[in-house]
């Protein structure tokens, strides 16, 4: 027994995170992570760059300011929907009804605004509340009754199309939005000054948060990221953000329009709105006990249950978040289309959002995904669709677009499946 007892505590060094000490080391660590299957959003980023290169060679004028702004605005509904779906996908569930529920919620908000003259903030809250109630119903059916989410949300997908017709009122088949704010949610542009103000706020907030993190680790005697990497990140945010705001602020109006005081310029509203959603939801997932429990239930619900995590409550909550985000997505879509009709939110709206999340790196099997995946995947998809719609003309144009979009989704899912194999331990 003596040879077993001589290994004593204290002599061994404290095991801690292998934190990179230099830029080169952090780059090396990142490569190692990619190699072991933690590729994250890498395919989406590569995809975005590749698509931009391909389309800019294939058609002159693709890399124009107007197409850039259009892509941002058109991607907003998909990105918002996908952000909510990330939560559901993290548990290995699916919500097929999110698109329709979102548009029904938006129709509800539009009716509040148009028919009852309710102010826009309340109309938005009304739509969000509609989404939250619908989501808690779906979550209850899944978590308490135990019906598979595929069936629950497929039923909801069908039923809510009917609900949407009832909310809109079948006579016209359309509710047009009159409120200026609601109309501009997707199309509005910030004033040039406000664009810069938001950028400064973002840089200051990011720097403050990062410095606090470094400080917190130092206080516990833990190694933290090299300062050079932090400076590099902040520098990239400042330079990238400044270029972005500068180009968005270029006035696209013609000279005679400008003389009459008409300007087409400014950062689209969707950018700060989506950035705010991204920050709030990422914070919930990464920094709170709730978010940790979402990942735990997605990874191994039995382990989560044994750890005392309220698994059913968590399962219900992700559907509430998804449907609420779907309501915001529906409002963006309504703004883009100037109103809500009885067909909105149906078709492949939902499937495109799922595709966006998966392309961004969220796993369909649960347990892996981040909110930023939805943004990157949504952008990649929007670039693809915008580019194809200009490039592929003729009678069968839409046919080819569907086929290509489907293939892209398959590629993303294949990357997901293969990376999961790579991540598995062999010993």
């Amino acid at each position: 027994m003596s040879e077993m007892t001589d290994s004593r505590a204290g002599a061994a060094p404290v095991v801690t995170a292998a934190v990179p000490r230099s830029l080169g080391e952090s780059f090396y660590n990142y490569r190692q992570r990619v190699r072991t299957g933690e590729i994250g959003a890498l395919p989406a980023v590569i995809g975005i760059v590749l698509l931009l290169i391909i389309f800019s060679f294939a058609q002159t004028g693709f890399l124009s300011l107007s197409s850039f702004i259009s892509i941002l605005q058109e991607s907003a509904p998909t990105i918002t929907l996908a952000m909510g779906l990330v939560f559901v996908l993290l548990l290995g569930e699916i919500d097929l009804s999110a698109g329709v529920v979102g548009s029904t919620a938006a129709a509800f908000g539009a009716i509040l605004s148009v028919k009852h003259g309710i102010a826009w903030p309340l109309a938005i809250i009304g739509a969000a509340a509609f989404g939250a109630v619908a989501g808690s119903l779906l979550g209850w059916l899944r978590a308490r009754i135990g019906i598979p989410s595929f069936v629950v949300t497929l039923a909801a997908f069908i039923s809510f199309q009917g609900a949407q017709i009832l909310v809109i009122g079948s006579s016209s088949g359309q509710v047009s939005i009159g409120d200026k704010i609601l109309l501009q949610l997707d199309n509005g542009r910030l004033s040039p000054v406000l664009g810069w103000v938001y950028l400064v706020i973002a840089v200051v907030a990011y720097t403050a948060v990062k410095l606090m993190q470094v400080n917190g680790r130092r206080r516990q005697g833990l190694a933290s990221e090299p300062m050079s990497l932090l400076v590099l990140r902040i520098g990239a945010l400042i330079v990238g953000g400044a270029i972005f705001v500068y180009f968005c602020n270029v006035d696209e109006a013609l000279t005679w329009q400008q003389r009459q005081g008409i300007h087409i310029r400014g950062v689209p509203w969707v950018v700060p709105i989506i950035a705010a959603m991204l920050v709030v939801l990422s914070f919930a997932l990464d920094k709170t006990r709730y978010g940790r429990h979402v990942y735990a239930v997605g990874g191994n619900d039995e382990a989560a249950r044994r750890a005392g995590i309220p698994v059913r409550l968590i399962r219900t909550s992700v559907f509430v978040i998804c449907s609420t985000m779907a309501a915001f997505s529906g409002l963006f879509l309504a703004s883009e289309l100037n109103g809500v009709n009885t067909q909105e939110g149906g078709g492949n709206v939902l499937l495109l959002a799922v595709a966006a999340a998966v392309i961004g790196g969220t796993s369909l099997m649960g347990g892996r995904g981040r909110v930023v995946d939805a943004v990157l995947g949504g952008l990649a998809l929007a670039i693809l669709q915008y580019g194809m719609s200009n490039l592929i003309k003729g009678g069968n144009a839409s046919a080819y677009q569907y086929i290509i979009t489907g293939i892209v989704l398959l590629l993303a899912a294949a990357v997901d499946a293969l990376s999961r194999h790579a991540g598995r331990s062999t010993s």
Partner: protein
Amino acid sequence: MNQNEPILRMRGITKSFGPVSVLKGVDFEAHLGEVTALVGDNGAGKSTLVKCIGGTYSIDAGDYLFEGRPVKVHGPRDSAALGIEIVYQDLALCDNLDIVQNMFLGREQLNLVRTLDEPSMERLAGETLASLSVRTVSSVRQKVASLSGGQRQTVAIAKAVLWNSKVVILDEPTAALGVAQTAEVLRLVRNLADQGLAVILISHNMNDVLQVSDRIAALYLGQMAALVKRSEVTHTQIVELITAGRSGNLGLPLSTTLSSNGAAL
């Protein structure tokens, strides 16, 4: 090192599932600073006894004494509150979370603004692993999916001792491990006891049992055949206790084993 008063003592525990009597008046005890091996053939009642200790099953009759006082344990939370942690065979780890996140799962520490206090959790996890002399894990921020079987077992055990637990029950910790990993886990088991914990080791592997345990408790068809010091028995005697309930003058009276056999058949 050994203390006379056991930290955990079960007296005359009976447990039935309908007409099937699984535990028939079992006596069991575990001491601080010792590894008590719980051995027995399949169906002897090892898992049932452990689940009674952990509170998953309620006992039908008998006394449950902890630190000399009778206690009532109605669920896993009660036993955890006493300082009893069970590491089940299927480990219950989340593959998609890293070591720190798994060790604090369900008991995450929060900072002043009610968000996750990652730095202090990371430090505590690192210190716990270091106190167990774990050297096989390179980073506490590794995802559990990337760990080997032995490393997973290590994480599960470290998770159990993180909470100032006094009794740690390990269910077949070496069942699926290779030679080197088994040695590492056994070293860890010995280390836990040397640090003053009471360790209960369930195992089918006689080599493991003989190597690390201080006491051996052999269950035979729902009865405690023997609870003896490791130094007092041989390999052959343990095997006989497991398979026949008795060995020489050790174990159950001859008549009891025969009648039990008859009842079982």
